[in-house]
Every structure is written in C-alpha cells, then in structure tokens.
C-alpha cells in the first residue's frame, strides 16, 4: 500500500506508457466524461460517476477489418445484364487474418468496479472456446487500475446486480481517493512492480453508496415475457443509444466491402450491431422477428439477465446505469425488473 500525491499518480501513468502500454482513462470532454487515450496533455478525471463510453470501445472497436480477399470481380458492359463478382478458390479458411496491430498493450487507468466487471463479462463471451483472435490480441497483457467508487448517481445499480466489487483478477492496482491523495494497493505482480512494492495485497473495497436502491429480481425469461412495457416505452424512439453506451453489448455485423478502385480487392469488416435496430432480426424474405419496440426491449432485458446467466453464469448487466442516463428518453428498466426499496 502506498499513499501517492496527484503528481505521483501521473507518474504511474507515465511509467505505464514507458513500459509500452497505451493508457486509457477518464477525462472530461465537451460536458461528458469519456475514456480516452491519456497523453501528456490529457487531464485525468478522478471525480466522476460515469463515462459515456466504456472499455469495450477499446477492446471491441466499432469497426474493424478482419481480412481481405481477392475476388474475380470485374465490371464489364453487358448491356442490361449485370455480372456478379464471385469469390474463387479456397476461401476464408486459408486466409490469414489481419489483426489490427495493437498500438501497444492496453491499460485502463481509473475505471470503476462496474467497468472492471464488464471486462470480465466480455472475456466470458469473447474468450470462450473458440476465442475471438481479434479480441484476444487486444486483451492479452491488459493492465487494469480500478478507482474505487464512493457513491453512484441516481441511475447506478451495481449493488443490485452484484457488480459493486472488482472481480478477482480484474485489478492490478486499486486506487482510493482520500482528500487530495490517493491510497494505492497492488493486487497483482504487475501492479506491485509498478508500485515498486514486494507484496500483493487482498483488496477489501467498500461498496459504493447508491442514491436509489433497487431489488432486481423479476429477471426470469417467463416473467419478462409476460410483462407489458408499453407505457414504459412511450418515449422510446428505438435510437439504440442504450446498447451503444452499454459496456457489455458486444453484438456485431459482418460486411464485405468492395472498392470501386479495384473491385477484386474485398475487405471483410466487423461492425457494431444493436438488437434495437431493424436489421438485427430481419432475414431474407422481409421477415422480421423483433417487430415492435416492446419486442426489442424485452429481448435486450432477456439477453442481459436470463440468457447471460444461463450462458456465462454471470449477469450481463453490470449495473453501470449508462443505458438509463444516456437514453434520450431516460427509459429506466429497473422498475420493470424489480422495485425500488430506498
């Protein structure tokens, strides 16, 4: 354990950068706090509740190239007949994926416990067999310094979903603010080498205080299915913001991009998707599974709670409250799945 000044905290970030990490941490920008790469001029924010983005934006970018391949596409004048470009030869299996070169190993500095839990969830999803090589390339050697959270805002619910504490193995350092100073504990060999301390400590963090407490217990599939969210969703415009700002939403879509310059050069890209979008559940023949906003909201709830519990043994909601705070209509799922107790 060490008591560090503000300058010494900045020193830790510099040291991480010296060791080849791309350090990402909270900074205030245009009226919101966001996780950004911390450069010399970036001001680290240590008094904040929520960040608009989350570690997933660095581990699973909005758009990434998976690989390129050659097709025999040519565009020729066939009168009114259209010629289809085709892919020839052994396809994807023999293609060596092009991982986006990591700019260095990643380090998250100053994220809250809910976000550390979100990394655990993403790991469960992306690293379960077979592991996603793109995610793994960014995830390997990840350094995490968690900043304890004293009190959430009116949208936080980490306590209700059990992610108010850092899961084991998801912090190299744990930082508590105390006046102008910071109490820093190392909880991994990497953390202690950074603190230049010998020992690794067990962290016992206090649970953050909640402004509003909820019991979230109506989370089984049947209950969600039978409830009617019509009134709750009156103001929902299906804008998908809730899934963009959610630290555990990982859905993606895969597209092939042809270029006009050289139509034989095709790029396969992975892009973010959202279950609130129409194309998420539409298939050939103009069939749409999740038709209404009620369907899509219920799907989101089912995936966050019962489906995640079943598949990964962990809640898919880490209680950060982002989907409520950043919804243009402040649609709040908490009373749909439970009740307020304090």
């Amino acid at each position, binding site marked *: 354990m060490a008591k560090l000044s503000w300058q010494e905290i900045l020193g830790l970030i510099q040291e991480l950068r010296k060791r080849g990490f791309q350090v990402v941490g909270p900074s205030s920008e245009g009226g919101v706090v966001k996780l950004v790469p911390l450069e010399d001029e970036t001001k680290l924010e240590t008094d904040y509740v929520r960040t*608009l983005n989350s570690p997933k934006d660095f581990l699973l970018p909005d758009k990434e190239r998976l690989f390129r391949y050659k097709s025999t596409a040519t*565009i020729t*004048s066939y009168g009114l007949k*259209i010629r289809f470009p085709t892919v020839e030869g052994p396809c994807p299996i023999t293609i060596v994926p092009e991982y986006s070169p990591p700019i260095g190993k990643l380090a998250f500095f100053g994220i809250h416990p809910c976000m550390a839990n979100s990394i655990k969830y993403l790991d469960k999803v992306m690293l379960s067999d077979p592991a996603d090589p793109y995610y793994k390339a960014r995830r390997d050697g990840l350094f995490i310094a968690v900043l304890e959270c004293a009190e959430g805002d009116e949208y936080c619910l980490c306590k209700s979903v059990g992610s108010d504490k850092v899961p084991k193995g998801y912090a190299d350092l744990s930082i508590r603010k105390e006046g102008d100073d910071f109490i820093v504990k190392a909880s991994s060999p990497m953390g202690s080498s950074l603190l230049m301390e010998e020992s690794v400590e067990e962290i016992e963090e206090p649970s953050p205080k909640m402004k509003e407490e909820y019991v979230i217990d109506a989370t089984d599939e049947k209950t969600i299915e039978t409830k009617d969210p019509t009134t709750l969703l009156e103001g929902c*415009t299906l804008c998908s913001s809730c899934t*963009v700002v959610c630290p555990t939403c990982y859905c993606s879509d895969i597209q092939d991009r042809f270029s*006009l310059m050289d*139509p034989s050069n095709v790029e396969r890209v992975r892009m973010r998707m*959202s279950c609130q979008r129409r194309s998420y559940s539409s298939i050939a023949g103009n069939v749409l599974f999740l038709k209404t906003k009620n369907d899509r909201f219920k799907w989101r709830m089912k995936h966050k709670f019962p489906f995640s519990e079943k598949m990964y043994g962990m809640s898919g909601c880490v209680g950060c409250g982002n989907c409520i705070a950043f919804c243009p209509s*402040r649609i709040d799922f908490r009373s749909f799945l439970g009740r307020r107790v304090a």
Partner: protein
Amino acid sequence: MKLAFYSLTSCEGCLTTLITKLGPDIEGLWNNFDIDYFKLVREPVGGSKFPKADIAFVEGAVVTNLDREHLQEIRKNSRFVVAIGTCASTGNIAYTASRNIKLGKKALSVLEVREAEPLSSVIALDYELNGCPVNADEFVDGLLRLVNGLEPIQPDFSVCYQCKLAGNACLLDKKQVCLGPIAMGGCDAACTSVGSPCLACRGPYIEADLKAYFKTLENKGLKVEDAKPLLQMFMGKKIKEVLKE
C-alpha cells in the same frame, strides 16, 4: 455497365459532391463503367439526351414541367432509377417552400413551376440514397451492391446511434431541439458532433416514431411546438408518412 447521372431542379450539390468527395474512387468509376451522361462533366453519348443506361442516378426535385417530362424519359431508358440526395427522395426544402409561396397563376405558367415533388411522386423509383448532399461512401456502396445484384441498403438507425458512437453529450439535455431521434442516420452525426442540433437533412429514419419523439421532448422539458417548423425543413413529402403512423 452503363451509368447516367441526371440533374433536375437542385443546387447540383449532389453531383458536385460525387466529383469532389469520391477521391481516388472517381477514377474507378470512370475506368470500370461506361458513363454515358454525367451532368456537369460529360454530354450524353450517342445522340439521345437520355441514353439507355443500366442505372440512372437522379438528383433534384421535380419542380418544373420539364423536370417531369425528363424524369419520365429517364425512367423509360433506364433499368434502375436511383434517387440521390434529399431533394430527389423527399422534395427537400422546395417541397414545403413551394407550398408556402403564393405565386399567381400567371407567374406559375410563365415559370412552369408546380408544387415540388420527390421523384417517387412521378415515377416508380427503384432506390433512394439520402443526404443533403448525398454521402459519397453510401453512393459507392449502393452502386456496388447493385452491381452485385443486391439492393442498396438504407441505414436502419437514427442519427442518435452514430451520435452516441461519436461520444457526444446529448443536446436535448442542453435544452436544444434536436431531430436526431427521428432522423435517418449515416452522416456520422456530422452536425451534433460539432454542437449543432440535427435538422434531419437525410429525411426521416425508416422506423421514425413521431409520437415517441414528442414524448421524448416532453420528458426533457422541451416544447413540441418548437420542433414542428424544423420537421418541415428537409423531410418534405415524407413528413406526411411519418405523421400518419
């Protein structure tokens, strides 16, 4: 494959955008396709003002009688007709403006002006690419999809989606009326990312829900009345479809 690029009543900004924004792709466009007409760039090839084309791209709204006749000729001579830009897809500013301006019968007959309409009011249109001006990337994507025998896709998300991806604080919280929640996305939230509210220059989003949007404004303490004039600006004829739902 033969392409033709036409212009009806407009600022010609969409075709200009294609020329200026395609970058190196413009060379690909020129080398890989037969471009038998491109307003501002190449006169019609082969004598006819409306050469036979596999795909005709048309910018602009139908405002004059001549526009109407030309569009019908274009339809006859093209396998696919694709509207490019918001004038062609909704009627844009001209749609509402031409209904508000009081022109006498005489002035109208001299100018041969009518109430502005989007292309879809006059012909059976195949596809629409929105934007004021059209987005060059979406154009390339749409063209290549057509070449591949696929339908061009319109974004299925509103401006809010990309606004959140860009990491912007919501302007509604700053008490500014923003049309983002009902506006068709795909612009990378160009305006809201620099702090100006969205005016839905790409027309309504395919699942635009006006009732929910008005409710959102109420929730934020904003006046629905303040949003109404903005809805008239770019959405043209499409605002009627949105209102119906």
